[in-house]
C-alpha cells in the first residue's frame, strides 16, 4: 500500500540530564575562592584588555597567558539591562521576574554578567549597583556566591 498521506503524530518526551563536574584552572579557581572565602572580587590585568573581571588565564585578544591580580570594588555601573518577564524553569535563577545586567565594577575594564532582583523598574544603563553576598554557609565557590546586585540609593 502507498504510505498514507497523514498519520496521527507520535512523539516521546525525554529530558536529557548531564551532570558535569567542571574543573577550574588556576585563575578561575582562585577567583572563585576569592568570592567564597574573602567576599572579594578579583580581576586580572591582561595585556591588550586591561583589568578583566571575571578573569581568564589568557587574553581573548591574542591568547597569551600572563597577567596580574587586581582587586576591584564590589560596586559598579550598569552597562546593559534586560528584565526577564517570565522566567523559564530549569534555566533561570529565579521563579519571579528579575533582570540580567552587565556591570562594570569600579576598577575593571570589562563588564561582568549578573542579576538584579529588586526595584527592576528603576534599573537603567548607568545605574549604580553593589554586590549582595550569599551568606557564609551558602557560598560554594561559584559566580552565585554573589547572590545578586542591588541598586545603590
Amino acid at each position, binding site marked *: 500500500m502507498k504510505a498514507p498521506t497523514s498519520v496521527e*503524530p507520535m512523539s516521546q518526551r525525554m529530558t536529557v540530564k548531564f551532570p558535569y563536574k*567542571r574543573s577550574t584552572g588556576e585563575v578561575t579557581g582562585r577567583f572563585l575562592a576569592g568570592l567564597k572565602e574573602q567576599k572579594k572580587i578579583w580581576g586580572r590585568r591582561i595585556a591588550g584588555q586591561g583589568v578583566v573581571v571575571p578573569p581568564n588565564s589568557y587574553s581573548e585578544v591574542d591568547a597569551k597567558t600572563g597577567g596580574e591580580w587586581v582587586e576591584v570594588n564590589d560596586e559598579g555601573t550598569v552597562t*546593559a539591562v*534586560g528584565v526577564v*518577564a517570565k522566567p523559564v524553569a530549569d534555566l533561570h535563577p529565579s521563579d519571579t521576574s528579575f533582570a*540580567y545586567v552587565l556591570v562594570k565594577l569600579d576598577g575593571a575594564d570589562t563588564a561582568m554578567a549578573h542579576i538584579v532582583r529588586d526595584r527592576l523598574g528603576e534599573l537603567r544603563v548607568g545605574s549604580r549597583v553593589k554586590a549582595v553576598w550569599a551568606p557564609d554557609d551558602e557560598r560554594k565557590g561559584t559566580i552565585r556566591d554573589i547572590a545578586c546586585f542591588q541598586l545603590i540609593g
Partner: protein
Amino acid sequence: MSKLRNVAIVGFAQAPIVAENPHRTAPEMLYPVVRQALANANVERKDIDYQCAGSSDYVDGRAFSFSQVMEVMGAWPPVQDSHVEMDAAWAAHLVWVKMQAEECDAAIVAGFGKVSEGSPMHVLNLQLDPFYHASLGLDHVSTSALQASAYMAKSGVDDAGLAQVAARNRAAGAKNPDTQLRQAVSAAELQKTPFVTSPLREGYLPPIGETATCLVLAAEGKAEKMCDRPVWIHGVDHRIEFQTIGARDLTSSASTKLAAKNAFEMAGVKGVNDAQVVELGSTTPAEELILRDALGLPSGLGGTSGGPVVNPSGSPLCANPLMNTGLLRLAEGFRQLSGRAGERGVAGAKRAVVHASGGHCLQQNIVWVLGTERRWT
C-alpha cells in the same frame, strides 16, 4: 588580489518553514528538499562530488546527529562528506574553500534542525562559558536584550525605533511565500506585544520554526550547465569576536565590519553601495541596526534612506529556523540575482551582499558578495 576560482550557486530548495512538523523527522524533511535541489540544478546525485551539512547535536537532542542525514544527502557511491556544528552558511563556506582547493566541482550544502523538538533557550545557553555566564542561566534572548539595551543607550534609538525596524521586516515577509511569518503588522501593534526580556518584545523576536534546506554549488565549467543564471561568489570572509560579552563593545560589530572589508576587497568593490540587495542575518531590530552601522548602511529611521534594498526576505525576524537561517540569506541572494524572487524581486539587481551570524550577541559573522557575472576572467 590574486585570481580565485569562480564558484556559483546553481540551485536551492527548502521545505516550508513551520512552527512544528510533527509528521517528519529531520532526514525525512531533508530528503525531498535534496531531491528538489538536485532537480533544480539539472543533476543527479551521482554528479555531486562533495556534500556538507550544517546542524547541531544539541538542537536535535542527539549525539552525531548529522549521521542521520548522510543517507538522504546521498550515501552511495560514497563521496567526501563533511559537517559543521554551525549554521549551514558556514557549511557553504567550507564547500567554497574545498572548491578553491580544487577538491570538488559540484557540491550540495544542507541545513536541518528540528527546533520544535527541544528548547532553544536551554540549548543556546550552552554556547556560553560555564563558569561565569551559562551558570547564571543566560539565554539567547536575554543576551540579545543586553546588547539591545547597550545599543539603545548609546545611539538614542528607542522602543518606537525598534518597532519600526520590526514592522519593516514583517511587511517584507508578507511578500515572501517561503518565509514563516507572512502577515504585515504595524509598528504600533508590535509595540503593544509584551516584553520577553526588555527591551525585546515578542513582536521584535523571531518565531520558533524549523525547516530543511539544500543549496547547490558548482565551479566554473559545470555551473553554466546546471543553472540558466548562476549566481557567482565574488568575495567571502568570516571573523569571530570574544565569547565574553562584557569584554567587547556590544554596540558595534567589529567582526562584521572587518569581514565585510575583506569580502569587498576580494570582490573588487568599494563597499555595500556597489550592491543592490543586502540580506542581514539579524534576529532582532537592534542587531539589524548594529549590522547596518557596520556595513555603512543607513538605519532607515527618522527619514534616512537610500542605498541597496535591505532584507527583502523579511530577515530572520520572519523565520529563524536554527541551522538554516544563514543559508536562507544566501538563498535569498541567489533568488534575487537569478530572477527567482517573484513579487519581491529587486529589479535589475546585479550584486548582493549577504550576511549571517552565529553565537551570542553577533559573536561570529560571515559576509558574502554575490554577482550575476563571473568575478575573475
